[in-house]
Protein backbone atom coordinates (compact mmCIF):
# COMPACT_ATOMS: atom_id res chain seq x y z
CA UNK A 1 0.00 0.00 0.00
CA UNK A 2 1.07 3.57 -0.61
CA UNK A 3 1.01 4.29 3.11
CA UNK A 4 2.76 6.71 5.42
CA UNK A 5 5.50 4.15 6.06
CA UNK A 6 6.86 4.35 2.52
CA UNK A 7 9.20 7.25 3.23
CA UNK A 8 12.13 6.94 0.84
CA UNK A 9 12.82 10.25 -0.90
CA UNK A 10 10.19 12.35 0.86
CA UNK A 11 11.16 15.86 1.89
CA UNK A 12 10.29 17.98 4.89
CA UNK A 13 11.11 15.85 7.95
CA UNK A 14 14.06 18.00 8.99
CA UNK A 15 17.45 16.93 10.30
CA UNK A 16 18.15 13.41 11.59
CA UNK A 17 19.24 14.76 14.98
CA UNK A 18 21.02 11.73 16.50
CA UNK A 19 20.99 11.77 20.29
CA UNK A 20 24.48 11.43 21.83
CA UNK A 21 24.80 8.36 24.07
CA UNK A 22 21.20 7.47 23.40
CA UNK A 23 19.76 4.97 25.90
CA UNK A 24 18.03 1.86 24.56
CA UNK A 25 14.76 2.97 26.13
CA UNK A 26 13.28 6.40 26.82
CA UNK A 27 11.11 5.49 29.76
CA UNK A 28 9.78 2.32 31.29
CA UNK A 29 6.78 2.11 28.95
CA UNK A 30 9.08 1.53 25.98
CA UNK A 31 10.55 -1.51 27.73
CA UNK A 32 7.08 -2.88 28.36
CA UNK A 33 6.06 -2.06 24.77
CA UNK A 34 8.98 -4.08 23.41
CA UNK A 35 8.27 -7.02 25.71
CA UNK A 36 4.52 -7.03 25.17
CA UNK A 37 4.96 -6.86 21.39
CA UNK A 38 7.43 -9.74 21.32
CA UNK A 39 5.36 -11.78 23.77
CA UNK A 40 2.22 -11.42 21.67
CA UNK A 41 4.17 -12.22 18.52
CA UNK A 42 5.05 -15.52 20.18
CA UNK A 43 1.34 -16.50 20.17
CA UNK A 44 1.90 -17.64 16.59
CA UNK A 45 -1.41 -16.03 15.57
CA UNK A 46 0.03 -13.65 12.98
CA UNK A 47 3.18 -13.28 10.91
CA UNK A 48 5.76 -10.50 10.87
CA UNK A 49 4.31 -9.49 7.51
CA UNK A 50 0.81 -9.10 8.91
CA UNK A 51 2.19 -7.06 11.79
CA UNK A 52 4.14 -4.79 9.42
CA UNK A 53 0.97 -4.24 7.42
CA UNK A 54 -0.95 -3.37 10.58
CA UNK A 55 1.65 -0.67 11.27
CA UNK A 56 1.38 0.67 7.72
CA UNK A 57 -2.37 0.99 8.14
CA UNK A 58 -2.11 3.49 10.97
CA UNK A 59 -3.56 6.74 9.58
CA UNK A 60 -0.79 8.90 8.08
CA UNK A 61 -1.08 11.86 10.45
CA UNK A 62 -0.87 9.54 13.44
CA UNK A 63 1.90 7.36 11.99
CA UNK A 64 4.14 10.30 11.18
CA UNK A 65 3.78 11.92 14.59
CA UNK A 66 4.16 8.71 16.61
CA UNK A 67 7.34 7.26 18.08
CA UNK A 68 8.16 3.80 16.78
CA UNK A 69 7.11 2.05 19.98
CA UNK A 70 3.78 3.87 19.76
CA UNK A 71 3.44 2.57 16.19
CA UNK A 72 4.11 -0.92 17.53
CA UNK A 73 1.51 -0.63 20.27
CA UNK A 74 -1.20 0.79 18.01
CA UNK A 75 -0.63 -2.01 15.51
CA UNK A 76 -0.52 -4.61 18.27
CA UNK A 77 -3.93 -3.48 19.54
CA UNK A 78 -5.29 -3.91 16.02
CA UNK A 79 -3.84 -7.41 15.74
CA UNK A 80 -5.07 -8.48 19.18
CA UNK A 81 -8.61 -7.35 18.33
CA UNK A 82 -8.54 -8.87 14.82
CA UNK A 83 -7.53 -12.26 16.18
CA UNK A 84 -9.98 -12.23 19.08
CA UNK A 85 -7.55 -11.95 21.98
CA UNK A 86 -8.62 -8.53 23.25
CA UNK A 87 -11.78 -6.60 22.39
CA UNK A 88 -12.03 -2.90 21.62
CA UNK A 89 -14.12 -2.50 24.77
CA UNK A 90 -11.41 -4.10 26.89
CA UNK A 91 -8.82 -1.76 25.38
CA UNK A 92 -10.94 1.26 26.22
CA UNK A 93 -11.75 0.15 29.78
CA UNK A 94 -8.27 -1.17 30.55
CA UNK A 95 -9.25 -4.53 32.03
CA UNK A 96 -10.41 -8.00 31.07
CA UNK A 97 -14.11 -8.43 30.29
CA UNK A 98 -14.06 -11.88 28.69
CA UNK A 99 -11.60 -14.72 28.19
CA UNK A 100 -11.14 -14.33 24.42
CA UNK A 101 -9.21 -16.53 22.00
CA UNK A 102 -6.54 -18.93 23.24
CA UNK A 103 -3.09 -18.70 21.64
CA UNK A 104 -1.00 -21.65 20.46
CA UNK A 105 1.55 -20.76 23.11
CA UNK A 106 2.22 -18.25 25.84
CA UNK A 107 5.78 -17.02 26.17
CA UNK A 108 7.06 -17.61 29.68
CA UNK A 109 10.31 -16.27 31.11
CA UNK A 110 12.07 -19.62 30.86
CA UNK A 111 11.37 -19.74 27.10
CA UNK A 112 12.79 -16.29 26.34
CA UNK A 113 16.48 -17.15 25.73
CA UNK A 114 15.68 -19.95 23.29
CA UNK A 115 12.96 -18.00 21.47
CA UNK A 116 15.17 -14.93 20.96
CA UNK A 117 18.13 -17.09 19.94
CA UNK A 118 16.05 -18.94 17.37
CA UNK A 119 14.42 -15.87 15.81
CA UNK A 120 12.11 -16.39 12.86
CA UNK A 121 13.98 -17.46 9.75
CA UNK A 122 12.04 -16.60 6.58
CA UNK A 123 14.05 -18.57 4.02
CA UNK A 124 12.19 -21.45 2.41
CA UNK A 125 13.28 -24.09 -0.09
CA UNK A 126 12.11 -23.54 -3.64
CA UNK A 127 12.08 -26.10 -6.45
CA UNK A 128 11.95 -23.64 -9.34
CA UNK A 129 15.09 -22.15 -10.87
CA UNK A 130 15.83 -18.44 -10.41
CA UNK A 131 14.68 -16.40 -13.38
CA UNK A 132 17.55 -13.92 -13.22
CA UNK A 133 21.30 -14.24 -12.85
CA UNK A 134 23.75 -11.77 -11.35
CA UNK A 135 24.45 -9.07 -13.92
CA UNK A 136 20.97 -9.19 -15.51
CA UNK A 137 19.27 -5.88 -16.24
CA UNK A 138 15.76 -5.79 -14.83
CA UNK A 139 12.93 -3.34 -14.49
CA UNK A 140 10.89 -3.22 -11.32
CA UNK A 141 7.17 -3.41 -11.84
CA UNK A 142 5.02 -0.35 -11.54
CA UNK A 143 2.10 -1.30 -9.33
CA UNK A 144 0.14 0.33 -6.56
CA UNK A 145 -1.58 -2.36 -4.53
CA UNK A 146 -3.71 -1.29 -1.59
CA UNK A 147 -2.34 -4.39 0.13
CA UNK A 148 1.10 -5.09 1.64
CA UNK A 149 4.19 -4.87 -0.53
CA UNK A 150 7.90 -4.43 0.11
CA UNK A 151 8.65 -2.66 -3.17
CA UNK A 152 9.00 1.00 -2.19
CA UNK A 153 7.40 3.64 -4.37
CA UNK A 154 10.69 5.30 -5.26
CA UNK A 155 11.94 2.02 -6.76
CA UNK A 156 8.93 1.14 -8.93
CA UNK A 157 9.26 1.13 -12.72
CA UNK A 158 13.05 1.58 -12.49
CA UNK A 159 15.81 -0.19 -14.39
CA UNK A 160 18.58 -1.72 -12.31
CA UNK A 161 21.07 -4.55 -12.29
CA UNK A 162 20.78 -7.80 -10.36
CA UNK A 163 23.83 -7.83 -8.13
CA UNK A 164 23.21 -11.06 -6.26
CA UNK A 165 20.74 -13.86 -5.82
CA UNK A 166 20.10 -13.94 -2.08
CA UNK A 167 18.03 -17.09 -1.69
CA UNK A 168 14.34 -17.93 -1.55
CA UNK A 169 12.11 -16.32 1.03
CA UNK A 170 8.50 -16.07 2.16
CA UNK A 171 6.62 -13.64 -0.11
CA UNK A 172 5.32 -10.90 2.20
CA UNK A 173 2.76 -9.52 -0.26
CA UNK A 174 0.82 -12.79 0.11
CA UNK A 175 1.82 -13.81 3.61
CA UNK A 176 0.65 -10.54 5.17
CA UNK A 177 -2.89 -11.37 4.07
CA UNK A 178 -3.05 -15.03 5.00
CA UNK A 179 -2.62 -16.18 1.42
CA UNK A 180 0.28 -18.49 2.29
CA UNK A 181 4.04 -18.15 2.30
CA UNK A 182 4.44 -18.71 -1.47
CA UNK A 183 8.24 -18.33 -1.37
CA UNK A 184 10.08 -16.62 -4.21
CA UNK A 185 13.69 -15.94 -5.13
CA UNK A 186 15.02 -12.69 -3.72
CA UNK A 187 17.64 -10.57 -5.49
CA UNK A 188 19.66 -7.53 -4.54
CA UNK A 189 18.97 -5.05 -7.34
CA UNK A 190 21.12 -1.94 -7.58
CA UNK A 191 20.03 1.28 -9.27
CA UNK A 192 22.12 4.21 -10.35
CA UNK A 193 21.10 7.29 -8.36
CA UNK A 194 20.14 9.07 -11.59
CA UNK A 195 17.68 6.32 -12.54
CA UNK A 196 15.76 7.00 -9.35
CA UNK A 197 16.23 10.70 -8.66
CA UNK A 198 17.01 12.05 -12.13
CA UNK A 199 18.85 15.34 -12.28
CA UNK A 200 18.63 15.74 -8.51
CA UNK A 201 20.61 12.60 -7.79
CA UNK A 202 23.62 12.95 -5.50
CA UNK A 203 27.00 12.44 -7.18
CA UNK A 204 28.26 8.87 -7.06
CA UNK A 205 25.06 7.52 -5.48
CA UNK A 206 23.68 4.06 -6.03
CA UNK A 207 20.77 2.54 -4.14
CA UNK A 208 19.87 -1.11 -3.78
CA UNK A 209 16.76 -2.91 -2.68
CA UNK A 210 16.12 -6.57 -2.02
CA UNK A 211 13.40 -7.58 -4.46
CA UNK A 212 11.23 -10.67 -4.72
CA UNK A 213 11.26 -12.19 -8.18
CA UNK A 214 7.71 -11.18 -9.05
CA UNK A 215 8.67 -7.52 -8.54
CA UNK A 216 11.03 -7.80 -11.53
CA UNK A 217 10.72 -7.98 -15.30
CA UNK A 218 13.54 -8.60 -17.76
CA UNK A 219 14.74 -5.61 -19.78
Amino acid at each position, binding site marked *: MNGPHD*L*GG*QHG*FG*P*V*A*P*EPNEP*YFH*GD*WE*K*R*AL*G*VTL*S*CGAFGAWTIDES*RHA*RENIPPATY*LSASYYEIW*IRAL*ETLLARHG*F*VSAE*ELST*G*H*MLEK*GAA*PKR*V*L*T*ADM*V*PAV*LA*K*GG*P*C*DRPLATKPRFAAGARVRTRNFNPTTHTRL*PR*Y*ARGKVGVVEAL*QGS*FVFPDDNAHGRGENPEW*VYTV*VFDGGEIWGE*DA*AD*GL*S*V*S*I*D*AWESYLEPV
Partner: protein
Amino acid sequence: MSHDHDDHHHHHDNHFSPMEARVRALETILTQKGLIDPKAIDAIVETYETNIGPRNGARVVAKAWAEPDFADWLKRDATAAIASLGYTGRQGEHMRAVFNDGETHNLVVCTLCSCYPWSVLGLPPVWYKAPAYRSRAVIDPRGVLAEFGVTLPGGKKIRVWDSTAELRYLVVPERPDGTDGLDQEALADLVTRDAMIGTGLALEPEARA
Protein backbone atom coordinates in the same frame (compact mmCIF):
# COMPACT_ATOMS: atom_id res chain seq x y z
CA MET B 1 13.87 -4.06 36.47
CA SER B 2 10.75 -5.61 37.97
CA HIS B 3 7.42 -4.14 37.01
CA ASP B 4 5.14 -2.92 39.74
CA HIS B 5 1.45 -3.70 39.41
CA ASP B 6 0.54 -2.91 42.98
CA ASP B 7 -2.87 -1.37 43.41
CA HIS B 8 -1.54 1.55 45.39
CA HIS B 9 0.00 2.84 42.17
CA HIS B 10 -3.33 3.09 40.39
CA HIS B 11 -4.35 6.40 41.88
CA HIS B 12 -1.31 7.87 40.14
CA ASP B 13 -2.65 6.86 36.72
CA ASN B 14 -3.45 10.44 35.79
CA HIS B 15 0.26 11.24 36.10
CA PHE B 16 1.11 8.84 33.30
CA SER B 17 1.65 10.03 29.78
CA PRO B 18 -0.95 8.71 27.31
CA MET B 19 1.45 6.03 26.07
CA GLU B 20 2.47 4.98 29.59
CA ALA B 21 -1.19 4.56 30.45
CA ARG B 22 -1.96 2.78 27.19
CA VAL B 23 0.84 0.23 27.48
CA ARG B 24 0.12 -0.33 31.17
CA ALA B 25 -3.54 -1.01 30.37
CA LEU B 26 -2.61 -3.41 27.60
CA GLU B 27 -0.15 -5.29 29.77
CA THR B 28 -2.75 -5.50 32.54
CA ILE B 29 -5.44 -6.95 30.26
CA LEU B 30 -3.06 -9.47 28.73
CA THR B 31 -1.74 -10.52 32.12
CA GLN B 32 -5.28 -10.93 33.52
CA LYS B 33 -6.04 -13.22 30.58
CA GLY B 34 -2.90 -15.26 31.12
CA LEU B 35 -1.68 -14.36 27.65
CA ILE B 36 1.60 -12.85 28.73
CA ASP B 37 4.07 -13.43 31.53
CA PRO B 38 5.40 -10.13 32.94
CA LYS B 39 8.58 -11.95 33.91
CA ALA B 40 9.09 -12.88 30.24
CA ILE B 41 8.92 -9.18 29.43
CA ASP B 42 11.55 -8.50 32.10
CA ALA B 43 13.74 -11.21 30.54
CA ILE B 44 13.34 -9.75 27.04
CA VAL B 45 14.21 -6.26 28.25
CA GLU B 46 17.21 -7.50 30.20
CA THR B 47 18.49 -9.37 27.15
CA TYR B 48 18.46 -6.27 24.98
CA GLU B 49 19.71 -3.96 27.72
CA THR B 50 22.66 -6.06 28.77
CA ASN B 51 23.47 -8.97 26.43
CA ILE B 52 22.85 -7.91 22.84
CA GLY B 53 24.33 -4.67 21.59
CA PRO B 54 26.84 -3.11 19.19
CA ARG B 55 29.78 -4.71 20.99
CA ASN B 56 28.75 -7.91 19.19
CA GLY B 57 29.11 -6.28 15.79
CA ALA B 58 32.33 -4.55 16.82
CA ARG B 59 33.88 -7.93 17.62
CA VAL B 60 32.81 -9.21 14.20
CA VAL B 61 34.43 -6.22 12.49
CA ALA B 62 37.62 -6.44 14.56
CA LYS B 63 37.98 -10.12 13.70
CA ALA B 64 37.46 -9.34 10.02
CA TRP B 65 40.15 -6.64 10.20
CA ALA B 66 42.59 -8.96 11.93
CA GLU B 67 41.94 -12.23 10.13
CA PRO B 68 41.71 -12.21 6.30
CA ASP B 69 40.21 -15.73 6.29
CA PHE B 70 37.40 -14.58 8.56
CA ALA B 71 36.85 -11.50 6.38
CA ASP B 72 36.49 -13.78 3.35
CA TRP B 73 34.00 -15.96 5.19
CA LEU B 74 32.07 -12.87 6.29
CA LYS B 75 31.86 -11.74 2.64
CA ARG B 76 30.70 -15.15 1.43
CA ASP B 77 28.40 -16.23 4.27
CA ALA B 78 27.91 -13.56 6.89
CA THR B 79 25.19 -15.48 8.72
CA ALA B 80 27.51 -18.43 9.39
CA ALA B 81 30.62 -16.33 10.08
CA ILE B 82 28.75 -14.19 12.60
CA ALA B 83 27.11 -17.25 14.18
CA SER B 84 30.58 -18.69 14.79
CA LEU B 85 31.04 -15.91 17.37
CA GLY B 86 27.74 -16.86 19.01
CA TYR B 87 25.68 -14.00 17.58
CA THR B 88 22.46 -15.42 16.22
CA GLY B 89 18.73 -15.04 16.57
CA ARG B 90 15.96 -12.56 16.17
CA GLN B 91 16.52 -9.97 13.41
CA GLY B 92 19.86 -11.53 12.56
CA GLU B 93 18.62 -14.68 10.87
CA HIS B 94 19.86 -13.69 7.40
CA MET B 95 22.96 -11.52 7.60
CA ARG B 96 25.02 -9.79 4.93
CA ALA B 97 28.24 -7.87 5.56
CA VAL B 98 29.17 -5.03 3.23
CA PHE B 99 32.71 -3.67 3.23
CA ASN B 100 33.72 -0.07 2.90
CA ASP B 101 36.84 0.52 0.82
CA GLY B 102 38.75 3.35 -0.81
CA GLU B 103 36.14 3.64 -3.55
CA THR B 104 32.79 3.13 -1.85
CA HIS B 105 31.09 4.01 1.41
CA ASN B 106 28.10 1.89 2.42
CA LEU B 107 25.03 3.16 4.26
CA VAL B 108 22.14 1.04 5.55
CA VAL B 109 18.52 2.13 5.95
CA CYS B 110 15.04 0.65 6.10
CA THR B 111 12.80 3.14 4.32
CA LEU B 112 9.66 1.02 4.87
CA CYS B 113 9.92 0.25 8.59
CA SER B 114 12.79 -0.29 11.01
CA CYS B 115 14.67 -3.39 9.85
CA TYR B 116 18.00 -3.54 11.67
CA PRO B 117 20.48 -6.29 12.56
CA TRP B 118 19.54 -6.78 16.22
CA SER B 119 21.86 -9.77 16.75
CA VAL B 120 24.96 -7.68 16.10
CA LEU B 121 23.86 -4.10 16.88
CA GLY B 122 21.10 -4.55 19.45
CA LEU B 123 17.96 -2.44 19.34
CA PRO B 124 18.00 0.43 16.83
CA PRO B 125 18.32 4.05 17.94
CA VAL B 126 15.27 6.30 17.64
CA TRP B 127 16.66 8.24 14.68
CA TYR B 128 17.08 5.05 12.63
CA LYS B 129 13.32 4.38 12.91
CA ALA B 130 12.19 7.99 12.44
CA PRO B 131 11.00 9.67 9.23
CA ALA B 132 13.94 12.07 8.76
CA TYR B 133 16.52 9.29 8.37
CA ARG B 134 14.24 6.89 6.53
CA SER B 135 13.22 9.52 3.98
CA ARG B 136 16.60 11.12 3.38
CA ALA B 137 19.17 8.32 3.50
CA VAL B 138 18.27 7.19 -0.03
CA ILE B 139 18.12 10.64 -1.65
CA ASP B 140 20.50 12.83 0.37
CA PRO B 141 23.05 10.53 2.02
CA ARG B 142 25.80 13.16 2.09
CA GLY B 143 23.49 15.57 3.88
CA VAL B 144 22.61 12.86 6.39
CA LEU B 145 26.27 11.97 6.93
CA ALA B 146 27.09 15.64 7.55
CA GLU B 147 24.61 15.62 10.44
CA PHE B 148 26.68 12.81 11.95
CA GLY B 149 29.85 14.84 11.44
CA VAL B 150 31.03 12.67 8.56
CA THR B 151 32.38 14.20 5.35
CA LEU B 152 33.52 11.77 2.67
CA PRO B 153 36.23 12.58 0.15
CA GLY B 154 34.67 14.17 -2.94
CA GLY B 155 35.22 11.29 -5.32
CA LYS B 156 33.98 8.56 -2.99
CA LYS B 157 30.90 6.68 -4.16
CA ILE B 158 27.99 6.06 -1.80
CA ARG B 159 26.01 2.85 -1.87
CA VAL B 160 22.76 2.89 0.10
CA TRP B 161 21.28 -0.48 1.05
CA ASP B 162 17.52 -0.31 1.64
CA SER B 163 16.60 -3.30 3.82
CA THR B 164 13.37 -4.14 2.02
CA ALA B 165 13.50 -7.92 2.58
CA GLU B 166 14.66 -10.15 5.45
CA LEU B 167 18.38 -9.64 4.85
CA ARG B 168 20.05 -7.59 7.56
CA TYR B 169 23.14 -5.56 6.73
CA LEU B 170 26.30 -4.96 8.75
CA VAL B 171 28.74 -2.37 7.41
CA VAL B 172 32.40 -3.25 7.89
CA PRO B 173 34.15 0.12 8.08
CA GLU B 174 37.67 0.69 6.81
CA ARG B 175 40.37 -0.15 9.32
CA PRO B 176 42.10 3.04 10.48
CA ASP B 177 45.82 3.48 9.89
CA GLY B 178 48.13 3.08 12.84
CA THR B 179 46.30 0.10 14.33
CA ASP B 180 48.75 -2.67 13.45
CA GLY B 181 49.75 -3.30 17.05
CA LEU B 182 46.25 -3.53 18.46
CA ASP B 183 44.64 -6.81 19.50
CA GLN B 184 41.04 -7.59 18.56
CA GLU B 185 39.51 -6.24 21.76
CA ALA B 186 41.36 -2.94 21.27
CA LEU B 187 40.30 -2.87 17.63
CA ALA B 188 36.68 -3.44 18.64
CA ASP B 189 36.90 -0.29 20.79
CA LEU B 190 37.29 1.68 17.55
CA VAL B 191 34.13 0.27 15.96
CA THR B 192 31.06 2.32 16.81
CA ARG B 193 27.43 1.43 16.22
CA ASP B 194 27.16 4.23 13.68
CA ALA B 195 30.23 2.97 11.80
CA MET B 196 28.41 -0.36 11.34
CA ILE B 197 25.26 1.40 10.02
CA GLY B 198 27.37 3.61 7.78
CA THR B 199 26.52 6.90 9.47
CA GLY B 200 29.97 6.92 11.05
CA LEU B 201 33.55 5.86 10.46
CA ALA B 202 35.77 3.77 12.68
CA LEU B 203 37.46 5.84 15.38
CA GLU B 204 41.10 6.81 14.99
CA PRO B 205 43.36 5.21 17.63
CA GLU B 206 44.40 7.66 20.32
CA ALA B 207 48.06 6.92 19.54
CA ARG B 208 47.66 8.78 16.27
CA ALA B 209 45.77 11.75 17.68
